[in-house]
């Protein structure tokens, strides 16, 4: 079994005076697609933001391949090899598609460049004809692809995806699902937060369930599919 790419231990996160995460811990190994599941407001996005340094944890530790990265600034964390696609996509609406990609360009933590723009267009053939379009005018699904592509441009060792299916037409959700399966097949490591179970269960290899800011369950995806109690209790399925 390969070593953990990312190891999260004992995270406490606050917004102002209110505590959101209580000792959250999880780990994702090379080549895994880990689903982070939980109800609305359970703390999925907060966990991702905490890992990225966008919501700095008050306690706890995040290490990437054994190197502690918590406490650094978001840009330093990104440079260490994390790529984040936020729940609301946050593309740069006034830039063109290609400019969005260019802004995301950076070498990987070991100086590698596995994602030249040509390869991006190979993996996202839909984006190529749109390269000179103003990103704000793209449809939601196209924006979602752009957001993922932009993050890949930074050659991340680990991809954090926050609700990639939200608000998208079913056909687009399907397409993004195909894309993620493709990424998995080329060995990318992914941590994905989702509400859409159909979508997620067909995609992930492992699952972690979070509820009220605490991890309540972690196992392989088939385990979860078999475990009715957890699914009913925390995922309302």
């Amino acid at each position: 079994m390969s070593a953990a790419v990312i190891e999260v231990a004992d995270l406490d996160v606050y917004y102002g005076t209110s505590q959101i995460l209580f000792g959250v811990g999880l780990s994702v190994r090379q080549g895994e697609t880990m689903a982070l599941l939980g109800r609305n407001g359970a703390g999925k996005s907060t966990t991702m933001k905490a890992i990225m340094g966008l919501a700095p944890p008050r306690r706890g530790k995040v290490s990437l391949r054994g190197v502690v990265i918590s406490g650094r600034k978001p840009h330093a964390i990104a440079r260490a090899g994390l790529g984040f696609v936020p729940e609301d996509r946050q593309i740069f609406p006034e830039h063109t598609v290609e400019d969005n990609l260019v802004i995301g360009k950076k070498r990987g933590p070991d100086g590698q460049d596995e994602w030249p723009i040509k390869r991006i267009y190979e993996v996202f053939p839909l984006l190529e004809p749109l390269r000179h379009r103003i990103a704000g005018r793209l449809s939601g699904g196209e924006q979602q692809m752009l957001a993922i592509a932009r993050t890949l441009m930074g050659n991340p060792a680990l991809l954090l995806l926050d609700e990639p299916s939200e608000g998208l037409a079913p056909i687009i959700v399907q397409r993004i699902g195909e894309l993620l399966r493709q990424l998995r097949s080329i060995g990318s490591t992914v941590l994905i937060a989702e509400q859409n179970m159909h979508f997620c269960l067909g995609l992930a290899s492992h699952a972690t369930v979070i509820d009220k800011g605490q991890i309540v369950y972690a196992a392989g995806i088939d385990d979860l599919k078999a475990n009715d109690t957890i699914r009913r209790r925390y995922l309302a399925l």
Partner: protein
Amino acid sequence: MDLDALVGCLSSSACLVTQTTSGLIIGMLLFLVAVGLTLIFGVLKVVNFSHGAFYMFGAYFAMTAYQLTGSFALAVLAGAAGTAVLGLIFERVFMSRVYGADVLMQLLVCYAFVLIFDDVVRIIWGPEFKSMGMPAAFQVMPLFIAGGVVPPYYLLLIGVALAAAIVLGIGLSRSRIGKVIRAAAHNPGMVSALGINTGLIYGGVFALGGMLAGLAGALAAPVRSLTPGMGFSVLIESFIVTVIGGMGSILGALIGALLLGLIRSFGSLGFPLFTEGLMYLFMVIVLVSKPTGLFGKEAA
């Protein structure tokens, strides 16, 4: 009102050339100050009320450097570099602490520094006004172009400002750093999550804005008297410029500054007692017909 003078001037090429260049000169110096203002607003959404102080420091730094070295080039360099450093420090140490707070809080921090900087200048250089003096190289007869008078120093000045405008305009729209700066203006969180040090960008933008104002101050030092508080009237005019052009737009700042310069130069002929009022009136008219300035974008 003295419309005859205005009409008379418009029909004479000598007068047209002279007044137009004089408008350009006023406009270009204004542009250098205003573009920093608009840049800082565009990226950090901070209305930098202390921007005039950078203009002031630019002039004082230049004067001191000139007195010490006797070199005008070094003086301009000192003005620009000194204010760049000052801008960086100001942003990193103070402004960076109030991002995310109420906009008025940011205004307040800037206002505090208007007060502090003026007194600092008073303490260092004294309350009296100073004059740097025109470098000998430029103490020459003015040029005559189509009957109009154009001093060589002002040609230099227009050239520098124009170069700054072009470099900035192209730099920001073409280069990656420019794209990143514009993106950071929209969404700093996302930009930093992509691995870009936004703190550096913010500091850099403030340094750049400060440097441009300082450059304007340094270039103005030979022809304007230096006094604590000298940044103020320049600041107000630059605000008019940026608002007319649209907050955050570099092209807007350029056009706004030139328009204002021309309003001044031709307005002083036709409305000698209401030149100032003319500027405000113009601003009101622009904003009423285009509520976000000439090149401003509707806030999302």
